[in-house]
């Protein structure tokens, strides 16, 4: 569950926290686009390291490390899957022709798998920075000011807001069932999947119950009574926001340029094969 901790907003103040959520979202989208654009290791590593200053400025390194730790299991699975699939279907990796016999080809397969893993890590990283530094309230505000219908904004923020609550609840349920002798890690694969039934059912039932309660609480506080909602706070772009827009676009443009015109070296170039 530690992976969820890495997405949970904690109230704090830093230049990154002060940024307009819309701008931060643009930045995340650019990172996302660039990460998908390239399938070479170097640009993805670069993308990974570019974000570290952000994390340090925001002062969320502890939470970030936790999200990375949480993602590491999945990252490992992605690496292993890619390695296995590239090994058995080498045609998908440029420069590799079956049968795989040279060390060069192994390096290529290894690089491809590592690249895919880093793509995942970069995506987790950028989303984690976004959610760690953006309060759900500001996020909702940003959506509203982007003319998204309020019902949708509300649904979205509620979903985000309840992720940590559900994670916490899942932990408690797990504890309660383990206290009744449930061993999650026991048995073969099918048995292990079945072991999660006693955790999922209470979790889902409670989530539904909670949503009904939430709906009642909202109704009793006159939700949707007025057509036009006003806000106490209004988001306004500042200098820092414009600089981040500029930086993000610069990143996108240079990435597209590099993608079109710059031959990107692979690991093999450095290993002098």
């Amino acid at each position, binding site marked *: 569950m530690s992976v969820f901790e890495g997405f949970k907003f904690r109230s704090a103040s830093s230049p990154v926290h002060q940024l307009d959520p819309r701008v931060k979202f643009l930045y995340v989208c650019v990172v996302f686009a660039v990460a998908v654009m390239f399938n070479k290791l170097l640009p993805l590593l670069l993308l990974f390291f570019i974000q570290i200053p952000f994390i340090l400025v925001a002062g969320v390194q502890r939470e970030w490390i936790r999200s990375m730790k949480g993602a590491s299991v999945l990252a490992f699975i992605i690496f292993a899957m890619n390695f296995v699939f590239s090994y058995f279907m080498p045609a998908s990796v440029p420069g590799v022709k079956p049968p795989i016999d040279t060390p060069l080809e192994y390096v290529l397969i290894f690089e491809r798998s590592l690249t895919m893993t880093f793509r995942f890590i970069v995506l987790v990283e950028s989303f984690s920075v976004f959610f760690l530094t953006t309060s759900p309230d500001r996020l909702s505000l940003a959506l509203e000011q982007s003319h998204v219908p309020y019902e949708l904004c509300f649904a979205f923020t509620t979903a985000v807001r309840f992720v940590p609550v559900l994670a916490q609840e899942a932990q408690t349920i797990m504890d309660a069932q383990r206290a009744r002798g449930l061993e999650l890690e026991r048995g073969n694969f099918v048995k292990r999947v079945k072991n999660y039934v006693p955790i999922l059912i209470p979790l889902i*039932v409670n989530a539904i119950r909670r949503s009904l309660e939430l709906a009642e609480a909202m109704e009793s506080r006159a939700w949707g009574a007025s057509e036009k909602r006003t806000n106490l706070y209004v988001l306004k772009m500042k200098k820092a926001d414009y600089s981040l827009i500029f930086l993000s676009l610069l990143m996108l443009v240079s990435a597209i340029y590099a993608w079109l015109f710059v031959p990107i070296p692979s690991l093999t170039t450095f290993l002098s094969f």
Partner: protein
Amino acid sequence: MIEVNNVFFTYPNGVEALNGVSLTIRNSEFVAIMGQNGAGKTTLVKLFNGLLKPTKGEVLIDGVNTREVSVANLARKVGFVFQNADHQLFCETVKEEAAFALRNFGFKERTVRKRVNWALNLLDLTEYRQASPFMLSGGERKRVALASVLAWNPKILILDEPTIGQDHQQKEKLRQFIVQLNAQGKTVVVVTHDVEFVAECAPRIVLMAQGNIVADGIAEEILTDRDLVTKASIVPPQITQIFLELEDLGLPNKVINVHDGERVLFNFLEGQLHERV
């Protein structure tokens, strides 16, 4: 026997829940752990069945270090009833729910049936045996949760906030029930805020504040100590409050339940009467 030796516990998010707690709970003792929210009560009891392992120090259950055995293994000895029954109910029928743990522990089907019947009968749930636990009322669900733990007859029973959401009658039943289990030799540990409930039970009280044990002793001593209860942010039972106010009249002030209060008052008035005569 539960031995807690100088235990520290810090949650992964950095919250220091326990700062050097030492405590021994002997067999067939009845202990109430009290204290304000966030004092570390639930954390402490979660160490007893290994759900949490101490960051520093050790917890021994009958001499076995909780670090060395699995939760499932400890659970055979230490039954833990969670605060919210909704966190554990998932079966289609009450009967299945009560059998869940027994099957996990690998009891034979015949034994399972016998134990389930016994536990459901004990908690007045026999008529609901085929009902879905989700259709029951809050108090009944709580009893199903309790039955599902009692079914395997653990030597030590831990109850986290058992009185929440129970009406007076159910509370009284629960109290009698706990006292009875204790009399049969079970170690009972209750985590609670409910001062009136504790006063009626009169167990040994362990008072916690900010991750430390601030007091440990019999109920009459602890609940009537003004400084202590203030420190742990609990309000003494109403009857105790009255007797603390009546101290000036020369009445004894260590009274925590109504029956004692009645007796003390009668004796006192009788004494006064004799003096007059």
